[in-house]
């Protein structure tokens, strides 16, 4: 009997209502007896609701038919019926689970108000009803039940602002409900039924003026409930003021219910798909734009919530419009679950942190665990991998592209970028320690629901990955490794570093050793090089919380990037790389702010790449990277988009402003990895794109030629900007930017020789920039300075570092006989062969300019006058020098026998660009010239040794006295202090006078004005939110009117 009751009634979907209502009635009774028993019952009920939803959903997933529930045993239309299918099950389970977690979070407040238990249960039940019911009027009732419960929950807080916000909320939703009711009754009038399925079956009856008015009312009501711009000020006020638990449930639960209502009534509203899409898109874009101006944490979450619901609406309308409802679970489901978990988690966290201004979130600074949670939730919201939002956005954008809805792609990506901007600005503020902060008082156990939400995000993300991809294990390998390393984060720093190296070396080898061609070469650079440079991380023995796991993720994601066969795999690894490198940059001393710029530019790059891949998918119908070339007429556009993305990531001119800050402020050893290794991923991407698309004759030369100019101008201006830097790391940062410019030009040449040049330069840049940044790490470690003019004369203390730097600089400069010359020679030959004479001339100029900063680096740091306080400095630690000298060894080998390097490069390129290098013995011949590296090496060694021997011989006849640093001719005076004797500050003042006008910070000014303008725009767009409930009500009415007019109301 009891068993029967349980299986027949309780475990059926209807059991949710039974449990909710039953518990609802019993809770006050239990409360009379004992508060704790009431709370226990409450949790049991919520858990029961989760369990029922879960069990039934599982059954459906296992192939059971959707459950139709008929009330009173009568079939519709004579009675209300409910349905529990796949969609319903998913939504209900998600909402109930989040409600359970929310209740856990809200527990301390629940203890105060027994009635809140009841209201909470009713509210959740209402949302369940909204999802399951198939009856329009019943839907209205559930909406109202939910609303009244919500009102009451809001009203329990007795502060004026909450009540005011609540009243505005009531007015707005009541008007919306009134519209709903009107719509419902007119629909009933037309169709004679209240059953949604019945109405859909008689869709043709819903026409004419009454049909139009009826559907218009219904649509307006549902849209208003979803809080569209600008009729959403009331929602924002509630998000801002209501307790986090309630706000979370309104944001995710109520909105989910309304969204589902829209989903199920959509067949009735099929005339308005465009309107719905526009409303959703505009809301997504504009609320994210306005969010930029917001500094109240909860209201910010409100903007984000509204934006997310807009995106969901847009996704729904677009999917239906394109007739790809099969993708709906992935797109809308993914976005929904992502928003649900992330937003709820953030509202809870906001509740716990309990700081209104986002600036005050700096209380989290220095608390890795909390920041990790915060970061996970934000990353999920922005749509970074591996969270569900990532997969959903991917599918959405690819499908939008396939359907030709390009404007919507722009809206989605632009909106996402804006959202990332304010969310990660918030994160940046949380990272910065401030003096005035008192430590937060969050108890660890109260973070449990937030942590569970974060875990669920990972789980659902993986679930979606399994749906979309076959090779998920490899894709998630970096994350698994990272998690494993993170679990060991309590170990001493050196041990962690060692562990990380072992894991990355083993994983990287497993992932990349069986690759072929280009990928193999990049495998050596990215993974091998990454491990080699990461050896240097051993020079710091401090704990560096989070550093090693993230570095592990970064390096392994580079390995998986190389393995990618489909654009999705590629993009996944790419974004993972972006995210992990961003987080690593934030770990630097002043890294938080520059990291934000880095992230935003990286995301912009990623979105260009995403758009490119989506268009390629649309054109070729395949996600295979190898199919990028089958994109027919859109080839030029695909190429331009992808190339733009990769060029942003290389720091091309105009979009380079992230480079100096990022390289400057990241940890010194990590900068080496970032510049020498990570930047090569963009080169790999560019080569990949060029290989698949750029070399096609039908694409035309023009995009490549433009790319060539971009690269060379980047090289020139990078060098010029480096000349005027006082900060040693920024100097090298600009230098990296410039050197990558040459590589970009090499790729743009689209010729065998050009690509050999590009690859050769890539390898070379890895070699010398790795040395330089590690050398600088040693110098910075010893001197604690980054401004070069504050150093000087360090050759006496750090001879090995000096030698390494000097060799790296010779290798960079292009002076024979080291590797740099080969790169310049190949590039020049390739450019002349192609007829790019102007670029060749510019290359000459920029490589001459490069001498200026190279000399400046060597002189002001290592030569000249040593400061008194540096007299006792020691040489850099051996562990920093070891990788440098290993790299020098490689440089020497490749300098003497470039054939060792050039042959594999050439053969890796041949599949795409036919041709091979012409060798005559050890001499390389091109159409124009020849280059016999071993002989050059021999001659140079000879002509260098002979004068040296001569001088040594002469020295025997001389009395050579080693003198002090002040024993210089100083116009018959004596120098007074090293500071005023060392010529270092503003070293190229005269050059500034002549050419300084070229490097006025125009790009920075441009991007600053973009930021300023978008803030101004945001400020003018939010004037609608004047806080007056009546204005809000007016907007709701106006919404109806506008929808009426736009959909041709006057033509009736």
């Amino acid at each position, binding site marked *: 009997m009891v068993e029967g009751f349980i299986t027949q009634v309780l475990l059926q979907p209807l059991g949710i209502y039974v449990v909710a209502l039953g518990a609802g009635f019993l809770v006050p009774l239990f409360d009379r007896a004992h508060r704790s028993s009431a709370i226990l019952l409450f949790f049991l009920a919520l858990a029961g609701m989760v369990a029922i939803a879960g069990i039934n959903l599982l059954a459906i997933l296992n192939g059971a038919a959707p459950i139709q529930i008929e009330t009173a045993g009568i079939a519709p239309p004579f009675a209300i019926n409910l349905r529990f299918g796949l969609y319903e099950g998913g939504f209900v389970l998600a909402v109930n689970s989040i409600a359970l977690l929310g209740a856990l979070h809200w527990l301390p407040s629940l203890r105060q108000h027994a009635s809140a238990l009841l209201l909470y249960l009713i509210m959740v039940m209402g949302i369940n009803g909204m999802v399951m019911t198939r009856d329009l009027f019943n839907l209205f009732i559930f909406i109202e039940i939910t609303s009244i419960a919500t009102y009451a929950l809001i009203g329990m807080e007795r502060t004026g602002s909450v009540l005011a916000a609540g009243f505005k909320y009531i007015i707005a939703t009541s008007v919306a409900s009134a519209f709903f009711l009107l719509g419902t009754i007119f629909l009933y009038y037309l169709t004679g039924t209240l059953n949604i399925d019945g109405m859909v079956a008689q869709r043709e009856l819903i026409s004419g003026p009454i049909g139009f008015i009826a559907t218009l009312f219904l649509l307006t009501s549902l849209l208003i409930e979803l809080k569209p711009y600008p009729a959403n000020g009331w929602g924002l006020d509630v998000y801002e003021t209501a307790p986090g638990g309630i706000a979370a449930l309104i944001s995710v639960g109520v909105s989910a219910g309304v969204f589902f209502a829209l989903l199920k009534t959509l067949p009735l509203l099929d005339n308005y798909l465009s309107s719905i899409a526009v409303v959703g898109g505009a809301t997504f874009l504009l609320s994210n734009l306005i969010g930029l101006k917001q500094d109240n944490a909860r209201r910010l979450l409100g903007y984000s919530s509204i934006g997310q619901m807009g995106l969901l609406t847009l996704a729904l309308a677009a999917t239906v419009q394109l007739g790809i409802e099969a993708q709906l679970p992935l797109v809308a489901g993914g976005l929904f679950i992502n928003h649900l978990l992330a937003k709820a988690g953030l509202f809870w966290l906001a509740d716990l942190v309990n700081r209104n201004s986002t600036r005050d979130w700096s209380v989290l600074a220095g608390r890795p665990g909390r920041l990790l949670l915060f970061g996970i939730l934000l990353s999920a919201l922005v749509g970074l991998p591996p969270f569900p939002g990532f997969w959903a956005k991917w599918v959405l954008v690819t499908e939008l592209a396939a359907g030709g809805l390009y404007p919507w792609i722009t809206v989605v990506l632009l909106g996402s970028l804006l959202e990332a901007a304010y969310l990660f600005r918030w994160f940046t503020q949380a990272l910065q320690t401030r003096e005035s902060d008192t430590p937060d008082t969050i108890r660890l156990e109260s973070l449990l629901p937030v942590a569970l939400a974060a875990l669920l995000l990972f789980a659902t993300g993986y679930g979606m990955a399994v749906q979309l991809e076959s090779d998920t294990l490899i894709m998630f390998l970096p994350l698994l490794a990272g998690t494993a390393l993170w679990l060991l984060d309590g170990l001493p720093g050196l041990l962690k570093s060692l562990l990380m190296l072992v894991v990355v070396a083993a994983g990287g080898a497993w992932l990349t050793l069986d690759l072929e061609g280009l990928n193999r070469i990049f495998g050596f650079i990215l993974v091998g090089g990454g491990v080699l440079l990461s050896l240097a991380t051993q020079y710091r023995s401090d704990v560096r919380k989070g550093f090693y796991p993230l570095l592990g993720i970064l390096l392994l994601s580079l390995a998986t990037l190389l393995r990618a066969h489909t654009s999705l795999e590629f993009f996944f690894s790419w974004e993972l790389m972006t995210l992990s490198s961003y987080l690593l940059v934030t770990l630097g001393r002043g890294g938080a702010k520059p990291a934000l710029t880095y992230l935003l530019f990286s995301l912009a790059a990623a979105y260009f790449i995403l758009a490119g891949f989506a268009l390629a998918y649309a054109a070729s119908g395949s996600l295979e990277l190898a199919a990028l070339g089958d994109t027919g007429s859109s080839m030029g556009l695909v190429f331009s988009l992808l190339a733009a993305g990769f060029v942003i990531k290389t720091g091309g001119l105009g979009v380079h402003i992230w480079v100096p800050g990022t390289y400057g402020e990241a940890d010194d050893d990590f900068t080496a990895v970032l510049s020498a290794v990570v930047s090569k991923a963009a080169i790999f991407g560019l080569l990949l794109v060029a290989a698949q698309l750029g070399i096609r004759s039908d694409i035309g030369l023009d995009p490549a030629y433009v790319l060539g100019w971009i690269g060379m101008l980047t090289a020139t201006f990078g060098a010029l900007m480096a000349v005027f830097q006082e900060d040693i790391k920024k100097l090298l940062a600009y230098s990296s930017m410039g050197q990558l410019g040459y590589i970009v030009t090499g790729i743009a040449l689209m010729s065998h020789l050009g690509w050999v040049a590009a690859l050769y330069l890539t390898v070379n840049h890895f070699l010398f920039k790795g040395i330089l940044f590690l050398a600088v790490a040693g110098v910075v470690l010893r001197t604690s300075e980054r401004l070069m003019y504050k150093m000087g004369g360090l050759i006496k203390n750090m001879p090995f570092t000096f030698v390494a730097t000097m060799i790296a600089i010779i290798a960079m400069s292009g002076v024979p006989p080291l590797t740099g010359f080969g790169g310049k020679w190949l590039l020049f030959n390739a450019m002349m062969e192609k007829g790019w004479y102007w670029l060749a001339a510019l290359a000459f100029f920029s490589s001459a300019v490069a001498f200026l900063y190279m000399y400046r680096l060597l002189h002001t740091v290592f030569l000249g006058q040593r400061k*008194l306080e540096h007299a006792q400095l020691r040489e850099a630690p051996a562990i920093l020098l070891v990788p440098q000298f290993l790299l020098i060894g490689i440089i020497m080998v490749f300098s003497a026998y470039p054939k060792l390097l050039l042959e594999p490069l050439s053969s890796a390129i041949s599949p795409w660009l036919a041709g091979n290098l012409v060798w005559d013995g050890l001499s390389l011949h091109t159409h124009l010239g020849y280059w016999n590296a071993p002989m050059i090496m021999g001659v140079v060694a000879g002509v260098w040794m002979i004068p040296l021997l001569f001088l040594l011989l002469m020295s025997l006849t001389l*009395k050579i*006295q080693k*003198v002090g640093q002040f024993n210089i*001719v100083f116009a*018959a005076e*004596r120098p007074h202090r090293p500071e005023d004797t060392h010529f270092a500050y503003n070293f190229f003042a005269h050059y500034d006078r002549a050419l300084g006008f070229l490097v006025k910070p125009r790009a920075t000014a441009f991007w600053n004005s973009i930021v300023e303008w978008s803030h101004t725009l945001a400020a003018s767009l939010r004037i609608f939110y004047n806080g007056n409930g009546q204005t809000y009500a007016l907007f709701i009415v106006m919404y109806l009117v506008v929808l009426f007019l736009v959909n041709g109301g006057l033509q009736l």
Partner: protein
Amino acid sequence: MKKTPSTLSTLENAGLSAEDQLLFSNARPRPYEPYPIKAIEDFANWARANSLWILAFGTGCCSIELRPLMTARFDASRFGVAGRPTPRQSSVFIIGGYVSVKTLKRIVRSYEQMQGPKFIIALGSCPANGGMYFDSYNTINQFDLYLPVDLYVTGCMPRPEALLGAILELQDDIKAGKCDGANRYIEHFDEYKANQKKVIKDWNMPDYNW
């Protein structure tokens, strides 16, 4: 002057603060030997004599007579004479007239920075005996108390012809191997230094300006 072999291998550099001591060399200069083979030494002296690079440091009013030396009328470049802007590369120091105490300090510093073999020509009466400034409070009267002079040219002031003649005479002396002023200075370093320090009160240089 008698030879006083120095007992210490390094100099005190007492005029320098502890900090500055680190920045300057405190090595004691050593005299150099001629080449062991006479022929080579003669050849070297011939080269030295025919390539006299004059330090462009006009110490007093007689320096005005240095300028015409390079012009068309006298054209000292015929004899391998050239001006040089840095003491490191010069071999001849022409003391151009009276030497004030302030200038003496700079002369000493510059002279010590020249590389040997190096020669001094004292131009005019003042370096020899103070000339018309003999009773000035800040002009030294006898220059060779402070630095070794290889050749005096008297007159107030001497004509360029006299200077040119002195240069030719110096060349002859160098070729004959008679100009060992630099070594003399080092051998009698302590006396010279004591004399210098006697007049130069603000001694803030190292004892030997390498």
